[in-house]
């Protein structure tokens, strides 16, 4: 078991190193000087001398190899450096925004599962009937409608129907729990619906397959009720392929709520990434990309663990 964990950890480190290297050199290949961009954008003229000085302050004057090594060395100490624009430590920039994104992603995941499991099960049990058709229409729509467009529709609908729109300023759960929930629920439903669409369809097909298995027939032959056949004898088996997809989707949510956060004015990681890109803040982009890579490998590991919990055949003995 220890050997397995060490091996897995080694794979983690290697993946992260590859990502760090790639992102570092890709950003350096891009044209434009982030330091110059910062000062020009601030409206001030800057002399070549001042520019050199500022560049030296961010370490851009050193040879590329040296910059690369100090970047990697910093990573090993969990230091991502400072943002070029705000000059705050990047860990601090991310730390302040990560919470709300994680909360939104988790909420979307919960909504997604709460929708996906009943929809998938219902569609599988009612396959070929009108109910299956209705669910199919819903899920296909969920997959094809972009969530930001839906987000805008929902906001418009809320506004015109109830004259209400979630508060634009972020509130804390401890201070205003209802406002907090109201703020979270609309984006969570919008994103969760999309998430559920993929998984409901996946669950439907894998559940149909499982329901045709011999061991399900065995359960029927034992006199087990149809409800119990589904929930006790089929669902865990049918969830196996779904878990992998949910994991990838969840990792995607943590890094990919860019547009949704923009539309709902949520000050999370997604917006931070947009800002970093528009300011050409190389250091911040690098830091965020590393965070996303870390999220993906961690979720991948979590998926393995959940699958092992669901399926004793892959458990370590």
């Amino acid at each position, binding site marked *: *078991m220890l*050997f*397995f964990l060490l*091996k897995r950890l080694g794979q983690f480190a290697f993946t992260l190193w590859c990502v760090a290297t790639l992102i570092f050199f890709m950003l350096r290949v891009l044209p434009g000087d982030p330091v110059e961009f910062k000062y020009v954008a601030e409206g001030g003229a800057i002399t070549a001398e001042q520019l050199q000085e500022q560049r030296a302050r961010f370490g851009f004057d050193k040879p590329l190899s040296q910059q690369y090594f100090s970047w990697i060395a910093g990573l090993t100490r969990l230091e991502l450096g400072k943002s070029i624009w705000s000059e705050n430590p990047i860990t601090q920039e991310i730390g302040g925004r990560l919470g709300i994104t994680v909360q939104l992603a988790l909420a979307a995941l919960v909504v997604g599962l709460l929708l996906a499991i009943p929809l998938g099960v219902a569609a599988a049990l009612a396959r070929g009937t009108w109910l299956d058709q209705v669910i199919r229409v819903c899920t296909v729509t969920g997959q094809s409608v972009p969530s930001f467009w839906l987000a805008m529709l929902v906001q418009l609908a809320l506004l015109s129907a109830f004259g209400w729109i979630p508060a634009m300023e972020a509130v804390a759960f401890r201070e205003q729990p209802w406002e907090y929930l109201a703020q979270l629920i609309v984006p969570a439903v919008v994103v969760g619906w999309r998430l559920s669409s993929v998984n409901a369809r996946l669950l439907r097909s894998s559940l149909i397959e499982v329901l045709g*298995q*011999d*061991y399900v*027939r*065995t*359960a*029927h*032959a*034992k*006199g*087990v*009720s149809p409800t119990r056949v589904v929930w*006790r*004898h089929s669902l*865990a*088996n049918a969830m196996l392929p779904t878990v992998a997809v949910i994991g990838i989707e969840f990792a995607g949510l943590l890094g990919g709520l860019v547009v949704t956060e923009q539309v709902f004015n949520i000050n999370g990681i997604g917006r931070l990434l947009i800002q970093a890109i528009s300011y050409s803040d190389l250091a911040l982009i690098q830091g965020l990309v590393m965070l996303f890579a870390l999220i993906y490998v961690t979720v991948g590991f979590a998926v393995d663990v959940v699958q092992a919990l*669901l*399926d*004793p*055949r*892959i458990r*370590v*003995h």
Partner: protein
Amino acid sequence: MENNSALASAPGHAPGGPAAASELVAPVLRVRDLTVQFSTEEGPVQAVRGLSYEAYPGEVLAIVGESGSGKSVSSLAVMGLLARNATMSAGTLVFDGIDLTRVSERQMRDLRGRGMAMIFQDPMMALNPVITVGDQLMEPLRLHLGMDARRARERALELLNLVGIPDARTRIDQYPHQFSGGMRQRVMIAIGLSCNPKLLIADEPTTALDVTIQAQILELMQDLCKRLKVALVFITHNLGVVAQYADRVLVMYGGSMLEQGAAQTVFKHPRHLYTAGLLASVPTLEGPRKDRLEGIEGSPPNPLSLPPGCAFAPRCSHAQSACAGQMQLLGTDVGSLSACVRAPEIAAGALRWMPRAGDLRRRLAPQRAGGRAAPAGPADAAQPLLRMESLEKTYALKTGLFGRTLKVQALRNVSLSIGRRETVGVVGESGCGKSTLGRLLLRLEEPTGGRVLFRGEDITHKPDRALRGFRRHTQVVFQDPYSSLNPRQRVQDILTEPMRVHGLASSSDEAAAEAVRLLEEVGLRPDHAPRYPHQLSGGQRQRVAIARALAMKPELIVCDEAVSALDVSVQAQVVNLLADLQDAHDLSYLFIGHDLAVVRQIATRVVVMYLGRIVEVAERDDFYREPLHPYSRALMAAVPGAAPSGHGAGAPLLLAGEPPSPLAPPSGCAFRTRCPMATPQCAEVVPELRPAGAHRQVACLRID
């Protein structure tokens, strides 16, 4: 509805049923005129047509039939487990005094698992992989008997002991994948018997198991059913199993019942031509070996288009115009019921099953006159076609997520030669290395030690480029004709592709003509050439696979369980075909099989393997007269009673336990852990193959 019959005149009496006749016991299950129909996209399918039977407590009733005969569907109908697109109707369907045609689904559910239980064919699939064996076993106890967790667990342990699962206290919390196939089937039996049912239906419960394990399971089921007074309905295609274990037998074909009666009576005096033909299709272990199996031509009928009247008539060599009329089950002179219009003639001895004249032999006649020539045998052994010398094969096996690597010795010190025109049969339980032997022989894999010589030339480590000649001369036919043919290739492309690859045809016209000739040679028609594999029956596909092998004009064909997946009647045809082709083309075969009777029919020499080693090599007749190695003897004894001459009485010598794990083979003689003759010395010395009489070798310390 077609069989409104003699049954009506003798209510409550199963024909020839010993239980019924002597004790007048009420039947547990009474079925009258059961009809099941499936609505499919191609139209309605009549799966069961007017089936009637009774099942009595403590009695084993076997339902025998080939694929599509309706034997499984009829039992699923009794259990109320039919698929959604099925409709059933029955004149009477009474279980334990309850009219099953009138009960609600809810009441039916209460009966399932409690009053009636069912065991399925594939124990590897029939248990839920993510639930512990104990939970699966306790479920019906809690559900039907309302036991609490503690009581249910106690009872589950009792049941596991009852079905012979050692170390039940540990095993109860394990998952199905930690059990072997035989052990899983024992668990299924425990689940079936958990609530003391009155009726147990077993659908091909041992078909997926090794012959030694099959014997254990069958003995267990028969014993439990007699002791607990359960009515056992046993669905099978294996006539040997019926002969040995069934009290009564019911023969189904094309959805209808053709014959029913006491098992011994039906086998000794079949009164339906289909039963007689089926019995003639089965090779036997006892009695003189027939030169050819006198089986049935053609394949089982398409349930979408069943003929009127007797479904068997189109394949029957004695069909008359009367056979197209309505069938009637009538009593016979020996007390059985038969639906054959010619039953009185059979009874009078005026009619006997004869196969249709073998047209293949006639086709082949110009090439080789006369019957089968004597096999080349030991005289040619000096110049064998293929020789394997001290072959070793070790596989590295990664276990779990640990990544630890274990070594499995699949073959250990195997030497064997195959002469021209010789058929070497290889037998042994699964995991004994017989398929590995085939793969090494074909050089699909390289051995880790030893040599393979083909026509005296060492091909052991030749690069693939240099193997083309060898590849042409050695071909293979696999077990499963459904997966061994490319579903996207037409039959003619399947046959002409290898000719193209090896440049055996100068033009595509010539190749196409050759493909047609091959089809005719294996008993198919030219109009099969443009078809796809899914448009053919299982037997036809296996013929295509054989034709593909023949297209190379090979000298040696490896048949890896080539007839195991086929219906009994079709299996006989393919066995005959292989023999005819050997005569016509001077072929050698390596015939890997698990059915000792089939191996007897086709092989000239027999090799017995156990855990990667050869334990006995003998000429066929010597071997079947008296197998020497204790393992050979145990294998032979495990074969359930051979059909027509069935020995009925006498339990087989049961081989205890299961083969040890090849990851940790026992020291010395690997078989000693299960051997009744083992001595302490057997644990120390690995027995070498030593001569034991002429042309015979045995690896056993206890045999001189």
